[in-house]
């Protein structure tokens, strides 16, 4: 009898939960429609930088901004290219991949840069920033037939940044070290059990790793042609052509959002969003946000550097010429929103 009562209670809870969820979903839909404002669907992955986009609604009072999160950039891409999403926030490697595949995507604004952290396992006795010592360790491990293992999530800006950074110090990322594909979520475990000696996570995973003592900060991989370029806001080409007013509003919203993120109130709201969506602790979020740089510009030379690096790594099919890249990066909405020149917001020649 007791088992039956427990089973009945569980069943009731499941059914009740489903009904509540359905009602809540329906409620939000009716609320949105009753507002009678144009709706813009904004999507972003769940990294610390990306979740700043959840605050875009506060900067676009004339619109109902519906924010969606995606666990993978590729899923977001599919939604964007198919028109299910109006505005997407992706990273620059994603943008270059889009351009290589001639997907109808156009970048219209920068968002937040930085957030990459090259960390070493605590057992690796190399002082932070001492690339000479690091190179010596790499050579020693390579000579011993056991190249130093670096965990990197392939396909990300962090991966590309490190592949550009290492040669600056005479280290070939393809032959001198063993770069292995490990999702951000698995990097702490991999460092902890000695499977890898280094990792290149993004925030807030990097903060969780350093604060949790699974790894120690070694360097920020920004001393290369792509700099700290990370996130970019894109729209579908059809959306750009057919909804110029919305695109202008988005560019204006981004122009207001980026300075807001640097304020105390903006930092608080941003931290709350990261905590809400990722479950990251307040301490880790604080560490993470300190390493992020809100930036509206889209520096073209750095986009070209990322494109060239991806081609060199055989990750895209063509060495994309400037003209092709420019078909997918539109500086006009941003220049109009900021009141600055095209070159001031990153166009070639700046």
């Amino acid at each position, binding site marked *: 009898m007791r088992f039956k009562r427990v089973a009945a209670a569980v069943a009731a809870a499941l059914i009740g939960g489903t009904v509540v969820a359905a009602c809540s979903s329906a409620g939000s839909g009716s609320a949105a429609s009753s507002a009678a404002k144009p709706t813009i669907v904004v999507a972003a992955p769940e990294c610390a930088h990306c979740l700043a986009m959840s605050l875009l609604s506060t900067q676009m009072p004339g619109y109902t901004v519906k924010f969606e999160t995606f666990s993978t*950039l*590729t899923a977001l*891409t*599919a939604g964007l*290219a*198919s028109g299910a999403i109006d505005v997407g926030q992706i990273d620059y*490697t*994603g943008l270059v*991949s*889009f351009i*290589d*595949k*001639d*997907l*109808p995507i156009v970048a219209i604004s920068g968002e937040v840069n930085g957030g990459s952290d090259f960390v070493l396992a605590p057992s690796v006795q190399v002082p932070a920033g001492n690339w000479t010592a690091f190179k010596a360790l790499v050579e020693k491990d390579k000579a011993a037939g056991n190249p130093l293992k670096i*965990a990197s999530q*392939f*396909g*990300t800006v962090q991966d590309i940044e490190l592949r550009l950074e290492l040669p600056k110090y005479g280290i070939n990322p393809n032959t001198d070290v063993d770069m*292995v*594909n*490990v*999702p951000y*979520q*698995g990097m702490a*475990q*991999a460092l*902890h*059990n*000695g*499977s*890898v000696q280094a990792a290149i996570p993004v925030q807030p995973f990097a903060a969780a790793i350093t604060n949790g003592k699974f790894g120690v900060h070694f360097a920020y991989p920004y001393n290369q042609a792509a700099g700290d370029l990370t996130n970019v806001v894109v729209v579908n080409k059809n959306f750009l052509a057919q909804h110029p007013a919305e695109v202008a509003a988005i560019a204006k919203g981004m122009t207001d959002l980026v300075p807001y993120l640097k304020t105390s109130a903006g930092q608080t709201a941003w931290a709350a969003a990261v905590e809400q969506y990722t479950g990251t602790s307040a301490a880790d979020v604080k560490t993470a946000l300190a390493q992020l740089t809100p930036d509206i510009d889209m520096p073209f030379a750095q986009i070209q550097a990322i494109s060239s690096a*991806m081609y060199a*790594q*055989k*990750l*895209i*099919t*063509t060495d994309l010429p400037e003209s092709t890249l420019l078909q997918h990066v539109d500086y006009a909405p941003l220049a109009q929103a900021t009141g600055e020149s095209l070159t001031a917001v990153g166009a070639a020649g700046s």
Partner: protein
Amino acid sequence: MTDLSSPGGRTDPASVMLAGSGPLPDPASVDAVQAAMGETGSGRRPLGMKKLGTRTGRIGLGLIVPVLVLAGWQLVVAANLFPSALIPGPLTVLDTAENWLGTRQSPSMFYTGHMFSDIGATLVRVLVGFALASVIGVALGTAIGVSRLVDGLLSPLLRILGPIPPITWIPVAIVLFGIGQQANFALTFVGAVFPVIAATAVAVSGVGRDLLRAGRMMGDGRAGLIGHVVLPSAFPGIVGGLRIGLGLSWMMAVTSEMLAVHNGLGYTLWNAYNYLDYPAVFAAMIVTGICGLLTDALLLAATRPATRWHAETGVRS
């Protein structure tokens, strides 16, 4: 190994019970059933069925739906319902597969010319993970099927663990095994073992008591009954579980290859996915499917001698 197909040495109780015992059926009802199944009263099959009985006929029949799917796929692409970069056409995928195979060198991609080494790497992961899952799964499933005590001890935990998506074991695998082959083997094992256990337990627990009585009458003890009666009788069901497990081994091996490997079908698939190279993603999906089909055919061929009696007593027309 016990000869399950031929009663030449020791009489197979399962075959005896299924083929020759029990009350004789009503001839009229047998005719009706045979007619419903497409057979003539004399046991001959209609002309169409006879053609399908040949190897060529079966292959031809099996190709009909894939060809229709390919045609439908091409139609969808030709209709431009989706961006071609997201849903590439069959010919584009074929071009990419040639590049992967190495018969085309341009463009030079990270996977160019690596198809066979990728297949080999994944195959090793599948075989090791599946072999472990088969041995442990059949042993545990048999124990659960024959013993209420073991059933009571293990089934609740297995029912909790079974529905957990294997991909969520990745962090656990990293902690327990580090990154490398062992983690891949472990993840492939986890993907395959639960259906093997479940199918074996169901098949074993479903063995008829009459068969067990027959085995006892022939002098078998508990171990002998399991070896001579229970497992042979349950084997068709166990093979069903192994086939599901083998398919899941491929799925999980490919999934696990997102983690710290340098080759494999999954390595190519996930990398291509990360860089939005959908023709390569589709090519990897298709090659994985074909590999799964071939290994399934091998498994069927290897187990057919032990399951032929079941096929011959089945209802399939």
